[in-house]
């Protein structure tokens, strides 16, 4: 039995007033809301951040000005934004794929770490390989490792219905410990004094960069992944199954789709893309494995995927925005402002997006008596 149209009367007739206000649930959210919600949310997040800055004794306008100028106003800012956006983009595409099927893959971070670990293993073991074999081999290893890590999180869901949020989340910590084990143990570089670092990879294992910037091929991989997943979802049979399962699992079952198999396949691909993000970090930026491969890219990716409403082009744009935010966070540090302001803005962005989204499902109606 379906619920009746949800109407909730906030105020009943107030004596002396000839109208009442009623909040109703919309049947259909108008299309223009989809365009307006990100704008409103960003504005509200900035406002919220401004209040916070003001209260802690900084001038919001100055801080925002510095953040904007150092990010989008200088060559270094722009290239660094692209560098930071690369892993975010890849990982966001990865998790968004799973989200499309209502699979809550919170394990992007762990999948990044496992991808980095597997790629490092290839780079440190097969040192004599030429670049055109080395880089694809590292990618395959990273994709496999990320995929397997996501598979470990999703198999219990596919078989026994175990909540995948918990399994994927917990596996993040396991992945980080594995990386720590190798950099503190077997792979520790004896020449790096006591730092937990692996030896530097052979040059063949370095991802090519663009000109003399730090921007590496990971950005291209990210864009290809975003467009590829977009095409997969909107045009292919498999993508169609993913959309139907995500929208209505019982319709999917009714039409003969194999849900368990799709859970596993989608998670494999989702994890593989995040794994490649990890490989790009070690191969494109650090050129060695270190204990901290990612500064929470896998978690930020979740926010990005949601802000972009899982839309591939949206994910590219939001990843750039968030890459910029990270750079801005570092740049304000020079002025004695904590870099956490960027993290706080990220968090409040998600908060306001969810809030505005929820409100968009309702409309306010004034009823005159």
């Amino acid at each position, binding site marked *: 039995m379906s619920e009746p149209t949800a109407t909730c009367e906030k105020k009943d007739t107030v004596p002396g007033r000839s109208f009442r206000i009623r909040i109703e649930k919309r049947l259909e959210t108008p299309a223009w809301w989809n365009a307006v919600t990100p704008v409103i949310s960003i504005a509200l997040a900035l406002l919220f951040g401004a209040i916070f800055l003001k209260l802690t004794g900084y001038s919001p306008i100055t801080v925002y000005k510095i953040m904007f100028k150092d990010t989008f106003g200088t060559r270094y800012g722009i290239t660094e934004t692209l560098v930071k956006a690369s892993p975010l983009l890849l990982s966001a595409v990865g998790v968004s794929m799973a989200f499309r099927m209502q699979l809550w893959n919170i394990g992007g971070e762990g999948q990044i770490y496992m991808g980095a670990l597997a790629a490092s293993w290839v780079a440190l073991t097969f040192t004599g390989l030429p670049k055109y074999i080395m880089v694809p081999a590292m990618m395959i290893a990273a994709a496999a490792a990320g995929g397997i890590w996501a598979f470990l999180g999703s198999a219990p869901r596919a078989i026994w219905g175990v909540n995948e949020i918990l399994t994927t989340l917990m596996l993040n910590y396991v992945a980080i410990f594995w990386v720590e084990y190798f950099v503190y143990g077997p792979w520790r570089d004896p020449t790096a004094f006591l730092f937990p670092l692996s030896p530097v990879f052979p040059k063949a294992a370095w991802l090519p960069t663009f000109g003399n910037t730090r921007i590496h091929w990971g950005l291209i991989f990210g864009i290809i992944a975003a467009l590829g997943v977009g095409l997969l979802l909107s*045009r292919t*049979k498999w993508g169609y199954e993913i959309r139907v399962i995500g929208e209505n699992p019982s319709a999917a*079952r009714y039409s003969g789709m194999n849900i368990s198999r799709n859970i596993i396949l989608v998670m494999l691909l989702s994890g593989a893309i995040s794994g490649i993000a990890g490989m790009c970090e070690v191969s494109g930026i650090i050129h060695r494995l270190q204990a901290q491969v990612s500064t929470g890219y896998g978690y930020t990716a979740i926010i990005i995927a949601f802000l972009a409403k899982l839309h591939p082009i949206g994910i590219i744009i939001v990843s750039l925005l968030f890459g910029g935010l990270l750079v801005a966070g570092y740049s304000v540090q020079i002025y004695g402002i904590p870099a956490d302001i960027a993290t706080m803005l990220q968090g409040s962005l998600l908060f306001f997006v969810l809030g505005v989204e929820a409100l968009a499902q309702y409309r306010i109606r004034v009823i005159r008596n």
Partner: protein
Amino acid sequence: MNILSGLYKPDEGEIFVKGKRIQIGSPRHAIEAGIGMVHQHFRLVENFSVAENITLGMSTPRFLLDMAAIEDEVLALSKEYGLQLDPKAQIWQLSVGEQQRVEIVKMLYRRADVLILDEPTAVLTPQETRELFATLERMKETGRSIIFITHKLEEVMQVADRVTVLRAGRVAATADKTDVTSRQLASLMVGKEYSPTLPGKTALETAPVLTLSDVTAYGDRGTVALDGVSLEVKAGEILGIAGVAGNGQRELTEVITGLRKTTSGTISLLGQDITNRTPLEVINSGVSFVPEDRYGTGMAPNLSLVDNVILKSYRTRIMCKGPFINYDAARRQTQGLVEQFQVKCAGIYSRARLLSGGNAQKLLLGREISSDPKLLIAAYPTRGLDIGAAEAIRSILINQRNQGIAILLISEDLEELMRLSDRIAIMYEGKIMGTLDRDEWDIERIGLLMAGVRDVQHEEALT
């Protein structure tokens, strides 16, 4: 029921309790007015104790719960009414019958004067049913009013003092029990008799398309939902399934389409065994299915009409190019269905949820027919539709029958069944009570079988 217990609000009309007009805006209002509801599916927290469940949702005491005192009170109440209960037991430890006692004691604890029981015996064993009736008797003696909702005539005749028959949201009649017979009640339940108007052509005497023999299956709650069901549907025939909803019809459609496993018995399609095959295998062998929950199962409401039209055909050769879906073909197919079945929509790329019920059903039925099935299962295909749309659906079904498709039609609307069906099988508690041909049935006979009264005429004929 939902209005009386405060879950839904009435659009108009008045409710009086003990002569006082009341407004029920929420379940709490209902409880304050002394109305207690025992739902068919219990509203209990599995991991809470009996006493905790009973006090749950009450506004007093405000902060501190004196569980011991509540437990004592619960125990006293349950003794008074002969409802054996351990207030400390957790709900998950209790049998279904005991859980129902918890629901009843909960209402007594809240001092409900009017007790509504919704199909209370559906989940009970015959022995538990007898105990329940004894309890109801005791509550009647203490001056409480009881509304007992059931579709089983035998129970009505056993416990009721007065009977009200509801049909299609209206009161069909109210009478003292002593003034009516079960035959009269059965007629009131099913409505007027209509002249059958199915076009002439009768089913070909061919081998059946669908055969079920002795099929047994469990329902979602682990109780037996199908109990040795045997039936046949021939090509060019509509077999109607009559019965009050919840007597195994949904499970029947699910076992045939592979969505539910059988525990015994066989299902075959054109001589091929399809028992416990996957839904995909069943679809591929030529079974189309219009499910009872058209938005919840038959469609993905947030996807476009095009995406919904290809829900089953997206794997076929016409609909794809390699791993890609041929969206040109999909668009043409959708356009074709929309025109052929006169589906009113805001464009084929609009979301399916925006379709009205009738248009959604036309599209769904059109999709199911377009795969040229051998067997079409239609569950409540006209439920909730306006007259025009319902007629359109019915004429599509008749049309398909005349083209030689075997149709299994499940409906609660006896008028519809008698108009469309070549034969009618009546289901009651997961069993087929009888299968009647056109010249054998009359509305009273079907009504009695639906209410679980065994077919006397049939038995007389046998002896």
